[in-house]
């Protein structure tokens, strides 16, 4: 599903964000990218969604060579991905329903599909009954659930989550992780960057550890060390 071959990404002249990274992620896997801030976790996610382009090596996502993709094809790649962020990136002037519907609206889905899919996914993330709330009327955990709903509503092949529990307390984080696990159980590949030991250790999934842009460990059913 995702394959990186000797990928290097350098910001500016000499800030090496990722160095010679190679790994494979199969369909349906749940993978943690771990490491301290600045170790290159986010950059790896951004390379997969082509918010960044690698300086060296190849990035393959869902059978597409992301590096060589023409800019006009990028939107089609992004429709196969769901992105979740630490700061949720919700639109504050839109309701919960509208935030999720927005993701379908802007890729041209017809109204009846939106009317059908949005309640389904809001139910999945446990926000039924809060459709008309605005983001500021929700707790952090609930806002992150909206964000996950928005990322998942188009049934992506892959979920890319960048520190989704970074702003949440442990109990709330647990709920978010349970939700991501549930989404993973539907066959969706999940790649999650995190430096939250508790979350990583509780899940016991594959762990890829980075240190200053270099992969130092790739372990099945690993823990944060």
């Amino acid at each position: 599903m995702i394959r990186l071959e000797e990928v290097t990404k350098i910001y500016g002249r000499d800030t090496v964000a990722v160095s010679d990274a190679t790994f494979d992620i199969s369909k349906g896997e749940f993978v943690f990218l771990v490491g301290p801030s600045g170790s290159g976790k986010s950059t790896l996610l951004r390379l997969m969604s082509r918010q960044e382009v690698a300086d060296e090596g190849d990035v393959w996502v869902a059978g597409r060579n992301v590096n060589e993709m023409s800019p006009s094809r990028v939107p089609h790649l992004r429709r196969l991905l769901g992105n979740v962020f630490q700061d949720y990136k919700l639109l504050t002037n839109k309701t919960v329903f509208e935030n999720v519907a927005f993701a379908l609206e802007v890729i041209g889905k017809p109204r009846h599909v939106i009317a059908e899919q949005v309640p389904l996914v809001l139910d999945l993330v446990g926000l039924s009954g809060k459709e008309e709330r605005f983001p500021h009327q929700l707790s952090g955990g609930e806002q992150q659930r909206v964000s996950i709903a928005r990322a998942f509503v188009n049934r992506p092949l892959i979920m890319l989550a960048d520190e989704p529990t970074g702003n949440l307390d442990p109990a709330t984080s647990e709920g978010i992780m349970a939700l991501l696990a549930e989404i993973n159980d539907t066959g969706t590949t999940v790649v999650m960057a995190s430096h939250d030991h508790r979350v990583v250790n509780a899940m016991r999934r594959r762990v890829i550890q980075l240190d200053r842009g270099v992969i130092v460990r790739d372990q099945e059913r690993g823990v944060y060390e």
Partner: protein
Amino acid sequence: MLTRIGYALRETWASFRRNLTLTMAAVLTSAIALLLVGATFLIQRAFENLLVQWRGDVAMIVFVRSDASPEQVDLIDQTLRASPTVIDVDKLRYLDKAESYAEAQRIFVGDPVTLSLLTPETIPTQFKVVPRSDDPALVRSLGEQYRTLPGVEAVALAEDEFEVISTLSRFVRTVTLIMSLILLVVAVGLIWNTIRTAMFARRREIEVMKLVGATNWFIRVPFMLEGLLQGLIGGVVACGGVWVLNGAWTNGVAGFKPGTGISSLIVPGGYLGGVMFALLAIGALIGAIGSAIAASRFLDV
């Protein structure tokens, strides 16, 4: 498809209201620029009426009495052709009664009194003389001679009637053209800035749209429509302005004494319609250009 059009229109309208001050500035600047463009067209057209009889380097017109005999006309023609060093005989033209009458219709367009006195029978015919020499004194002295020929009603020299107006017309055209061009560029810049600001105000939405896979065109279209609309509204305002100005001018001209050149300075309704259509088109164009530049440059927010 319908969802997309609906989306684009909704977003355009919402953004329009959000940025009301900037939008007004862009619209008004476009309107003033376009008004000047329109005025340039109209002034030009009005002067053309006045200058129509001197078109093609004509420097002297010999008017022939309407009751002159064919022999007298022939004599004048021969006399004119007898000075090939001063007169360009190849370009010598004789306008018969029908042609002279048609021309008078344009010259006296704003002077119904004079126009009603003219009939195709009573109108003087005319020789249009293009000089070969650059020396106006030479042309003038020839004119003095022709004045005494039998059948000649009058001799008019461009130097006396035309040159001041011609120079004035060229000057006015140059000034208004330069001013309107500058203002058009300013209008494009203001529309560009309005759209840029609108995009900046919505950078979070644009970021989300890009992340969930909206195409660049989908993101751009509402902004480009917004710019197009601003230019178009400017065009509509300018059309109204041109229409009002022309009406006031036409009324004012009607008050002048008949027989003065001023009464020629009138623009026919069909031409005014054409100018208004052109203003709408130019307005839409500057809007499209301004917003297209902004939308393609500031998508990476």
